[in-house]
């Protein structure tokens, strides 16, 4: 029986020219127009990740070295040992290596831009959302560092620690810088320990091996073109129209008494609604495949991770199925097509605006962006954009869960409040 509902629904959708126009022709036209007209908004970005780093030093590295040398002279070490330590100091200065060798690395400079800022501006700087990360070097950092390396048992020695302020609004970029510094720290600690027992510092240490991995992973991230962005955005908007169409067709079934026939055939209300749910999922899935397929053939918007792409497409289709079920139920319950009309005119537009169909929500307020992520459009767009840029499926699990919850929850609500008696 379920197959009957499915087959019928597919035929009804396919045979309606207005459906084809609304579901396929209009989004293709919009993708083309917006993709080309607003291409400039996206072309300025060489990389999807750009991290601005502020470097604030509360002390002075030269003064710290001098203070350490004074300490050396006053120590009980013999002159030969003092000379050896002084010889090693130049190769051990972590801040110098971090500034000159890590952040000045050619590959990294494409993504990370470091600016030295005076300490007195630190408070103001923390409120500046432009910076992904602020690195604060505390007073006497280098002195304490050298003391911890050569005189770890000295009581005056403090554990040298850099302070890192990460901007939560720039999660990806700030995490990237934090990872690079952490990698650097691990490598550095290891090499220093080896140096202390007589194994010389590896010259390549100046470009830590793990940092190299991070840099390469950033290089692998694909930038999003306007056409790719609008293929995703417009598709996410128009796929929701499947739900309102399903509701409209269902209401027509009720008005023409076809639903009466269905009930008299001893089909249950649940199987009728499940037919709506599953057919909406399949239609939404096919629609998205056609739209993304067109974009691939016409504009070269290619998905490298096809299985992740399909996973997201299935999840958004499930969400659409949930909406279709609920809209159908509300149309039946209130004996009116108002809910289909409301959903297609107001609901879809609000979801599209909040979800970032037309402009990326990152440019909006923090609250709007957060709400946007919870909309089906926003969740699906985030997931698609991440996968398109080359991130793994694990980065989009929350979005996939959100979409599936939408679908299942709305379907359950739809079934549970579907009217037992149908008004004539």
């Amino acid at each position, binding site marked *: 029986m379920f197959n009957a509902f499915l087959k019928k629904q597919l035929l009804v959708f396919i045979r309606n020219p207005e459906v084809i126009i609304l579901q396929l022709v209009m989004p293709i036209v919009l993708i083309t127009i917006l993709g080309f007209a607003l291409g400039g908004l996206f072309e300025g970005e060489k990389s999807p990740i750009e991290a601005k780093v502020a470097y604030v030093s509360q002390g002075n590295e030269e003064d710290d070295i001098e203070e350490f040398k004074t300490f050396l002279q006053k120590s009980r070490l013999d002159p030969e040992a003092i000379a050896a330590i002084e010889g090693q100091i130049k190769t051990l200065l972590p801040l110098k290596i971090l500034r000159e060798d890590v952040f000045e690395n050619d590959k990294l400079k494409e993504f990370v831009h470091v600016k030295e800022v005076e300490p007195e501006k630190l408070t103001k700087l923390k409120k500046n959302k432009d910076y992904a990360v602020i690195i604060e070097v505390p007073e006497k950092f280098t002195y304490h560092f050298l003391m911890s390396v050569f005189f770890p048992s000295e009581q005056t020695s403090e554990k040298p620690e850099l302070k890192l302020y990460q901007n939560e609004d720039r999660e990806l970029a700030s995490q990237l810088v934090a990872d690079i510094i952490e990698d650097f720290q691990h490598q550095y600690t290891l090499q220093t320990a080896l140096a202390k027992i007589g194994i010389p510092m590896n010259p390549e240490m100046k470009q830590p091996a793990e940092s190299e991995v991070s840099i390469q992973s950033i290089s692998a991230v694909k930038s999003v073109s306007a056409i790719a962005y609008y293929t995703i955005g417009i598709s996410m908007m128009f796929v929701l129209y499947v739900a309102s169409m399903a509701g409209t067709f269902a209401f027509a079934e009720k008005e*023409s008494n076809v639903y009466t026939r269905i009930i008299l055939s001893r*089909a249950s209300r649940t199987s009728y609604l499940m037919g709506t749910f599953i057919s909406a999922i399949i239609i939404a899935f096919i629609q998205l495949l056609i739209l993304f397929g067109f974009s691939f053939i016409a504009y070269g918007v290619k998905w490298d991770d096809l299985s992740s792409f399909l996973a997201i497409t299935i999840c958004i289709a499930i969400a659409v199925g949930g909406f279709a079920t609920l809209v159908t139920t509300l149309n039946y319950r209130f004996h009116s097509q108002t809910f289909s009309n409301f959903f297609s005119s107001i609901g879809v537009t609000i979801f599209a605006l909040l979800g970032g169909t037309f402009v990326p929500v990152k440019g909006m307020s923090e609250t709007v962006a957060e709400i946007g992520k919870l909309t089906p459009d926003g969740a699906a767009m985030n997931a698609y954009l991440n996968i398109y840029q080359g991130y793994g499926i694990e980065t989009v699990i929350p979005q996939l869960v959100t979409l599936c919850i939408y679908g299942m929850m709305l379907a359950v609500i739809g079934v549970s409040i579907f009217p037992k008696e149908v008004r004539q």
Partner: protein
Amino acid sequence: MLEAIDITKQFKKKKVVDGLNMYIESGETVGLLGPNGAGKSTTISMISSLVPPTSGDVRFRKQSILKNPQELRRVLGVVPQEIALYNDLSAKENLLFFGRIHQMSGKQLQKKVDEVLELIGLSEQKKVITKHFSGGMKRRLNIGASLMHDPEMIIMDEPTVGIDPQSRNHILETVKRLNQEMGMSILYTSHYMEEVEFICDRIYIMDQGRIIAVGTKDEIKSILSAEKTLTIKVEQPNEKFIQSIRQEGLVKEVQSSGNMITIVIPKEVNLFARLFQLAEGTETTIQSIEAQTPTLEDVFLHLTGRALRN
């Protein structure tokens, strides 16, 4: 076989059906006659288990269907007044769909589709999309869809509304065949007297939610056996003439429509001469006067004071 016992349906404060009793025996063809708004469709909805009555009971083979309608639904076909079909599917696709929701499949389904298409005379047009059909063809397919599961009983709600005479005849013949050749019980509602007279063995006449007469055609017509109907055709409608007829003591009913006036008088009364006098007095020209034997229409007029199609 199917019995409605004192059923009432009330929407808010309005009683649409009020204490209705009726029954249909196996193999019987029953007509439910009444004007628009009489409550026929609501009655059908209650009898076919779609809408529960506000009070009263509906029983199928002595069992109430209010709590368990499944047994009735298994053997019942309903032809709604609306064209309850998918306009974007072909005739065959529609029948396949309605067969499938009745758990039919495979060769059995295909065979039944062919049989029904043959019966409703749409075999040649089976691949035509329904929206391209004429009104009559849609009505035939509307009946076909309710025959897919071989029902024992079929309820038809005004199945000939708004169609051409040829399609109407085809439908009436089909309904007769369903009853006579296939033994189906039929409840046929209409406000066309001649259809009900042609098809039905027994007739219920309904008005304003109540049954006002019941019986065979002859039994119902016998209500008017003491009366006769005169149809007067005048050149120009004249209210004075109609009023003067109404004032005649022996005239029981007067109805007018355009230049036609229908009156009901006792059978033994000869009113011809008096009518010409009244016409002369009100400057009305009578073109013809025709005496008729009673029809169901006359019975309805007699019982309600209104014409069926008003």
